[in-house]
């Protein structure tokens, strides 16, 4: 099973229409955007979370203020890089670079998108076996799904392997 079914066909549509329009006009025409679609979801066994190591993956654009480069939030074609944030990071050290959602809630309370303290508490209560030492963060504005598959996903899989996780919780914006 593929991460994206018909990836080659998707890339051709994206490049020939959406991207070509952008290069010619400098503007994005979302009516030409081919939303990625899959017909079948992958199979996988259930796990006992109380005996598992879980990693949080957030697309909120979170980064360590003053210690990491912010994401390129204004780039019209997105940013495909990740930041690794220690899961023990104090919430006040988090900043968010992402121009495609209202930051009102996350500025008041980062746990609406990055629930680092809640996950710690749930591990303390025994619901989660262990929380991974690193949280994966990226800016979830990435119109080129080919680049998501080829550039964004590999370092996430490498981090998952290095963290030896059995489970992942993904929280979009």
């Amino acid at each position: 099973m593929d991460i994206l079914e018909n990836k080659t066909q998707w890339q051709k549509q994206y490049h020939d229409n959406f991207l070509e329009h952008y290069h010619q006009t400098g503007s994005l025409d979302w009516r030409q955007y081919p939303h990625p679609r899959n017909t079948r979801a992958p199979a996988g066994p259930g796990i006992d979370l109380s005996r598992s190591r879980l990693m949080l993956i957030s697309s909120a654009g979170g980064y360590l203020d003053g210690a990491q480069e912010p994401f390129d939030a204004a780039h019209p074609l997105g940013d495909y890089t990740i930041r690794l944030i220690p899961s023990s990071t104090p919430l006040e050290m988090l900043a968010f670079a992402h121009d495609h959602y209202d930051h009102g809630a996350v500025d008041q309370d980062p746990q609406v998108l990055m629930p680092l303290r809640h996950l710690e508490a749930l591990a303390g209560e025994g619901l989660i076996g262990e929380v991974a030492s690193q949280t994966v963060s990226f800016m979830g504005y990435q119109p080129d799904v080919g680049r998501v598959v080829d550039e964004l996903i590999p370092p996430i899989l490498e981090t998952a392997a290095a963290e030896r996780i059995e489970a992942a919780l993904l929280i979009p914006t």
Partner: protein
Amino acid sequence: MGLIARALELAGTATVIAANNPGRTRITAPPRVTFTPLPRGATLGAPGDAAQQRRILKATLELLAREAPLKPVYLDERG
């Protein structure tokens, strides 16, 4: 997020998504997902409402015990 969840699940990691945008997430066919009608930018609930955030988290994490693929689970939460 749906594609990342698929990649991880295919690599042997159990995944679950807590989402609030059924339209775009559902068509990527992720293995396990919960949806709420909460606004973009506040996926786990209202700022400062730790009880709601934990409720959504726990309901989402519970799905990890179940074999994938699962039908999306819609949570009755309000912003």
